[in-house]
């Protein structure tokens, strides 16, 4: 393969990788003078028509993806029986290698990388593409921790036998979901499972399931629950562990249902390491979030808080807020702990109950005592109410502090993009300012700041394609300017801002569209009256091409000379245009009428046959050859000055020191060339004046 040129364009330089289905090479794109990665389908599959079909179809689908966390596909092609995909060449290493080197990542690194992978999945899933082979070997990471996911959705299974060495196979099996191992239907949630395993590996430096053979590992994926090792050096929070555990649920319906969901949880974790994800119940009943407040205060029936707190509440330290069933399901091996917690919760429940009962008893007693007392006493007896402060437009941390001071828990309800507010600013709260609550929490909506998107590379697409691409990303098409370019007419030549720049959603992207190659215009020379060879030379040196040459009669132009030209002289004509011209055959013979004329024409043409005009500018005609004493007529061919308008042409015969006007007439410059007949004998010198300005002179031998 090395040295081979694919599609007349990509020169294969070196092999950089190999997988079950394809080899990957570094190549140089000759058209765009850039390095690319080429994935070449292994020859084993090139006979499998169905597979090739699938491969092509899926490659094209993946080529439509455009996201900064996804390795771009530039081109899909075939060259004889070589099927290939041209991809962005990524500098950096695989996440697998990175994990091996680092052993494990810090919590914020895990969150950050996971978010990026999830974003890639979100984009792909939105385009109905499931990756099916998410693993750190397929994720490239650069020094800044920016990742790109490769190998999206390319056909992975052929109808024929393929051998994968165990090591290669292991690579995928370690991350494949139970449904994949079983060969059942896979969907977006299968990718999320694999992401969960990748997250586990980043967090712990090890894989949840290891085994001697791929079969053992696949079996464990189906059967065994994921557990975290007892000791972890990097203090991975319970919050993150729970997100991972939710991602790797065996049952698809218990996992995150979409990339968006896991992104949301990861974002919450970023702000709040105490964040607890909600595990799904097998019965699909959503678990409520329980605020961390002193519940003894709570008991009024006319409660105006929006929160239901019917679920178990565990003491302050063990603020675990998911449903027991889901909890047990998630932590098969942590049953021991679970039991302890349950006991505790029961204990605290009973404590709560007795507390509530005693409060009621006291209240009842007070009520009896004060039954007839004045109303205002009531106020003093009521449980302390908290007035909700305003937190809108406040920064997340400050708002939380403020609320906590008042004993209110803050819960992030949602995070939304907002152009006007910076990331972390609270956009909305519920309950609103001034409302009184007995206890509970305030739900807030956080700004994620302006949604940023990476500008795609529009190069090569049409205006329409560019618009679609931009709109899909939430960007807008700005000004479209048409410029000369070597690119095909209608293709995007350049864009501003350039691709890869991160901008706020809604930003307008201006593009330059090719209107084809720049055309140069040159002045058309005057070739009337020139000989054929001279005319050709002039045409070529002026930047044009000699066109069709024909012959025709001409009343004005002597035989053998150019009598007409395809483009008018002095006009601006596109470079490279073909300039046709006509060579004079002399005046048209007249079949009836003046006998003399006929004779003359005959003489003319007879003379013209010799086809030589010594001087290009002068055509000599011997009217009466051999009669030397007689005056002989000669024709002077004069080229008029270039330009437009009228010019006075004077031909003066030089006699000693004086000059005698032999011809004087106004001509339109557009005539370009005129013919002046002079009659004399011997050698005569003529001077030519245009508008009384001396032009040049001729010596004519009669």
């Amino acid at each position, binding site marked *: 393969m090395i040295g081979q040129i694919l599609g007349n364009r990509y020169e294969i330089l070196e092999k950089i990788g190999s997988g079950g289905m394809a080899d990957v090479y570094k190549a140089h794109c000759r058209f765009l003078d850039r390095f690319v990665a080429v994935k070449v389908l292994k020859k084993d599959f*090139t006979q499998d028509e169905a597979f090739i079909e699938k491969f092509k179809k899926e490659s094209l689908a993946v080529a439509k993806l455009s996201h900064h966390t996804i390795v771009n596909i530039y081109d899909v092609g075939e060259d004889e029986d070589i099927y290939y995909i041209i991809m962005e060449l990524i500098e950096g290493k695989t996440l697998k290698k990175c994990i091996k080197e680092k052993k494990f990542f810090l919590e914020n690194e895990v969150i950050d990388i996971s978010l990026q992978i999830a974003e890639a999945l979100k984009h792909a899933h939105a385009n109905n593409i499931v990756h099916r082979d998410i693993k750190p070997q397929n994720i490239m990471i650069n020094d800044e921790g920016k990742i790109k996911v490769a190998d999206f959705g390319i056909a992975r299974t*052929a109808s024929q036998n393929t*051998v994968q060495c165990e090591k290669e196979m292991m690579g995928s099996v370690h991350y494949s979901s139970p449904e994949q*191992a079983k060969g059942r239907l896979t969907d977006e949630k299968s990718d999320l499972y694999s992401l969960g395993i990748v997250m586990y590996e980043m967090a712990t430096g090890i894989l949840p399931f290891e085994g001697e053979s791929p079969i053992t590992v696949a079996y464990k994926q189906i059967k065994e629950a994921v557990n975290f090792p007892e000791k972890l050096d990097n203090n991975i929070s319970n919050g993150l562990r729970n997100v991972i555990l939710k991602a790797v649920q065996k049952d698809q319906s218990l996992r995150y249902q979409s990339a968006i969901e896991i992104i949301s949880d990861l974002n919450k974790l970023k702000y709040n390491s105490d964040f607890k994800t909600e595990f799904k119940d097998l019965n699909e009943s959503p678990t409520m979030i329980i605020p961390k407040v002193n519940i003894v205060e709570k008991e009024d029936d006319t409660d105006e808080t929006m929160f239901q707190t019917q679920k178990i509440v565990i003491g302050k330290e063990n603020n675990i807020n998911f449903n027991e069933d889901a909890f047990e399901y998630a932590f098969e091996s942590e049953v021991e702990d679970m039991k302890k917690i349950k006991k505790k919760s029961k204990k605290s429940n009973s404590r709560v109950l007795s507390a509530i009962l005693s409060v009621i008893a006291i209240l009842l007693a007070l009520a009896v005592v004060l039954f007839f007392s004045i109303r205002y006493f009531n106020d003093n007896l009521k449980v302390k109410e908290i007035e909700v402060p305003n937190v809108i437009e406040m920064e997340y941390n400050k708002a939380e502090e403020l609320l906590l001071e008042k004993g209110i828990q803050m819960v992030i309800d949602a995070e939304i993009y907002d152009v006007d507010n910076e990331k972390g600013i609270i956009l909305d709260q519920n309950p609103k300012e001034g409302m009184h609550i007995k206890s509970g929490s305030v739900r807030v909506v956080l700004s994620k700041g302006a949604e940023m998107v990476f500008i795609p590379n529009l190069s090569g697409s049409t205006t329409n394609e560019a618009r679609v691409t931009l709109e899909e990303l939430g960007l807008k098409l700005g000004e479209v300017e048409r410029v000369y370019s070597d690119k095909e007419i209608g293709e995007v030549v350049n864009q501003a801002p350039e691709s890869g720049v991160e901008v706020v959603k809604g930003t307008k992207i201006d593009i330059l569209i090719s209107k084809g190659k720049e055309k140069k215009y040159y002045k058309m020379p005057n070739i009337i009256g020139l000989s054929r060879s001279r005319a050709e030379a002039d045409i070529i040196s002026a930047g044009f091409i000699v066109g069709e040459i024909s012959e025709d009669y001409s009343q004005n132009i002597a035989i053998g000379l150019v009598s007409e030209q395809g483009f008018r002289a002095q006009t601006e004509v596109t470079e490279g245009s073909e300039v046709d011209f006509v060579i004079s055959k002399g005046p048209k013979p007249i079949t009836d009428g003046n006998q003399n004329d006929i004779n003359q024409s005959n003489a003319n043409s007879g003379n013209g046959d010799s086809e030589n005009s010594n001087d290009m500018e002068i055509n000599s005609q011997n009217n009466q050859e051999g009669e030397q004493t007689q005056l002989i007529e000669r024709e002077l061919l004069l080229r008029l000055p270039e330009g437009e308008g009228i010019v006075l042409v004077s031909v003066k015969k030089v006699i000693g020191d004086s000059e005698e006007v032999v011809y004087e007439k106004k001509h339109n410059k557009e005539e370009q060339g005129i013919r002046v007949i002079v009659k004399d004998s011997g050698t005569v010198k003529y001077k030519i004046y245009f508008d009384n300005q001396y032009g040049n002179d001729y010596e004519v031998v009669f």
Partner: protein
Amino acid sequence: MEIGFSTDIGCHRTINQDSYFVSDDKKYPYFIIADGMGGKNAGEIASQEAINQISQYFNEISKNIGNGLSVEKIIEDVFNKANKFVYNLSLENIEYEGMGTTVVFAIQIDNILYVGNVGDSRLYCLSKDRAKQITKDHSIVAGLLEKGEISKEEAQNHPQKNIITRALGVSEKIKVDVFKHEIKCEDLFLMCTDGVSNKVRTDEMIEIVFQNISIKEKADKIVELANRKDGTDNATVVLYKLDLIQKGENK
């Protein structure tokens, strides 16, 4: 001894990568079937070469049978040598890069059928009421099926059913499974490539092999059925009935 074999390229392939070899040697009859993988004709080369090498080595080494060298060891040795040969071939020639082949090698010694296997070609022992698969496919799907994690139907439709974890000629070393089967007089052995086992159910095999037709026709019929059902792959069948050796006969 009755032997029938049949092979067909299938409707969608241009090359038959399946190869087989039958030695009706009276002392040690043996049978080989191989399904090659690799681009262009590399798969064909791999399966043919594997079979050539195995039969060649086996012929050399078979005189040591009974001289203290276990049959299992001999089979492993034979596979190893063939593996090395095919692997080297794949390294030497760029066209053959990555080629490999499945191999089932069955040899009758006394009244025992010794079977060496790599990959997912199969040897069945058929009787009127059941089909026993003697070899175990080297694939994740087969492994999960065996552990009961997936059903037969799921295995049949598994997208990875064609991905095998072992093959001859793809790496420097090879792990061979060796099975021993005590031959009974009614046993009918069927060796086939996955082009057959993926398409033809075992009950259909039984139905055909116990028809009153010649053994060659039986083999043809099974291959024909595989083709009729799908025909996307090469299909090869080697069918044989072995003679039981009366004690002392060979001594």
